[in-house]
């Protein structure tokens, strides 16, 4: 993210994902994927534009806390590396959004947190800390936290980065099972080419802060654009 202070970092991004669909934002490292995701939940302010999820919107140029709060209640976010709070237990991590947004009582929030963790395939004690779960377990616990408010849209930043192929495959299966069950939209921000071969309804290729290509896996595979070709044909070269 270098350059003159006044020059834009991400340009004219136009994203769309429907109910129960998966959008993959595929791009090399440092292409602006994480920055883009941060903007989608109002963690950064943009110079122009609009963002809306299921009727709730906020002005990304001047995010207002009240609007953001309503918006964020509809969006679950899984950050790269899980981003669970390390000093509190896994259950408390999952309880937090329930206590804050739904004002549930502590016992009810705890029961709901246990159910959410069971849905993502985790069983923990009251005192289990995130560090005791291992990387794959932490990712699943973070997924449970992201789904706590039953969001309409799930944003995932490099969701399986650092997991072995078996754990990554199992995570994908859990994710898609939950998507089928709850019908939420998913936007995956990743540089991992394997997602291009997963059941994404649409792939947006991000490079240099711009969407340089958009389409289905089949249409993009036919592209002669060097950036797209370099990204999508990497798997064949790696074989």
């Amino acid at each position, binding site marked *: 993210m270098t350059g003159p202070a006044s020059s834009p970092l991400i340009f004219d991004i*136009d994203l769309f*994902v*429907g109910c129960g669909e998966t959008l993959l934002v595929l791009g090399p490292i440092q292409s602006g994927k994480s920055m883009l995701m941060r903007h989608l*939940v109002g963690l950064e302010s943009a110079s122009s534009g609009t963002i809306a999820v299921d009727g709730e919107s906020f002005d990304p140029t001047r995010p207002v806390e009240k609007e953001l709060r309503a918006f964020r209640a509809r969006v679950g976010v899984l950050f*790269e590396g899980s981003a669970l709070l390390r000093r509190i237990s896994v259950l408390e991590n999952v309880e*937090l959004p329930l206590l804050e947004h739904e004002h549930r009582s502590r016992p009810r929030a705890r029961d709901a947190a246990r159910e959410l963790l069971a849905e993502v395939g985790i069983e923990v004690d009251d005192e289990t800390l995130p560090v005791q779960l291992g990387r794959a377990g932490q990712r699943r616990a973070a997924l449970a936290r992201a789904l706590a408010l039953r969001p309409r849209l799930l944003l995932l930043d490099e969701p399986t980065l650092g997991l072995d192929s078996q754990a990554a495959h199992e995570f994908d299966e859990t994710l898609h099972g939950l998507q089928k069950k709850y019908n939420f939209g998913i936007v995956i921000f990743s540089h991992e080419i394997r997602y291009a071969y997963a059941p994404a309804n649409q792939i947006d290729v991000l490079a240099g802060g711009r969407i*340089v290509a958009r389409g289905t896996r089949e*249409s993009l595979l036919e592209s002669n*654009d060097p950036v797209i070709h370099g990204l999508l044909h990497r798997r064949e070269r790696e074989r």
Partner: protein
Amino acid sequence: MSLPVQSGDAARRATRESFLTGEFTVRPPRGLRPGGRFLSRGRVALGSLHWMGWILVSPRSVVSGGVARELDALGVGALRLVCSASILVGLIATFQVAYQLKQYGAESVSALAIGWFGTREVGPLVVALLVVTRSASAIAGEFAAMTAGGEIDALRAMSLDPVKYLVAPKNLALLVALPALTVIADGLITLGGWVGTTMFLGFNTRFYLEQIRSSLSTSDIAIGAVKSVIFAFVIAVIASDEGLGVDRRVAAIGEAASRAVVYCLLGVLAADTLVNAVFYFIPSLVL
């Protein structure tokens, strides 16, 4: 560059149920501390005051457990350091004061100075400086690590205020722990003074206690405790702000910890100067 966008894409969007739509252009962040350090510290201080009030009126809230945890880490954890350092400070003060007064043949009144100066000035200041070295770097480092690891962003993305969940419990714990540690330190400085006065200066215990009794009043201890409350607030706000205001780099953790110690030391000394100046220019405030 032409985009290989599927034909009919726009029409598809118009008719489908819309979930996420967005079009925007992004400029680089204008710096991590909009408005500079003073405004940033002010925001943390005001937010912290607000959420501490909330914790006090909602003692069964989700963050109340955090206060107990922080009290254990920041207060009980510092007890051994404060105790050992305070006895040494008492001894140092005895030798230093006796050495100066010896020139005037007034060595015997050194206990008067230890009792008065120890509780009003040395006790709160030494405890604050010990807590700065032990806890300010830990607080800033912890928050900077949380920023680098995305935990702060995760809180914000859930509309959870980091000041409420992270800063206010630490601030409240320090506001309780520092005055308590200061009172303990006052006692141990006096104990160190007793050791020095009786073992090295050759005065007896009764003489020392009489000197302390005549020089020390409850108001001295109260003034020391009030100072330590101010120091606690300064340490919590500066260390937290330094930790939360870093960018998302691992190297920023060490930088934040170092800066927190430096700014907290300066902050504590500045606050102490201010309090002493107020007492000097408005003597009626001195109890």
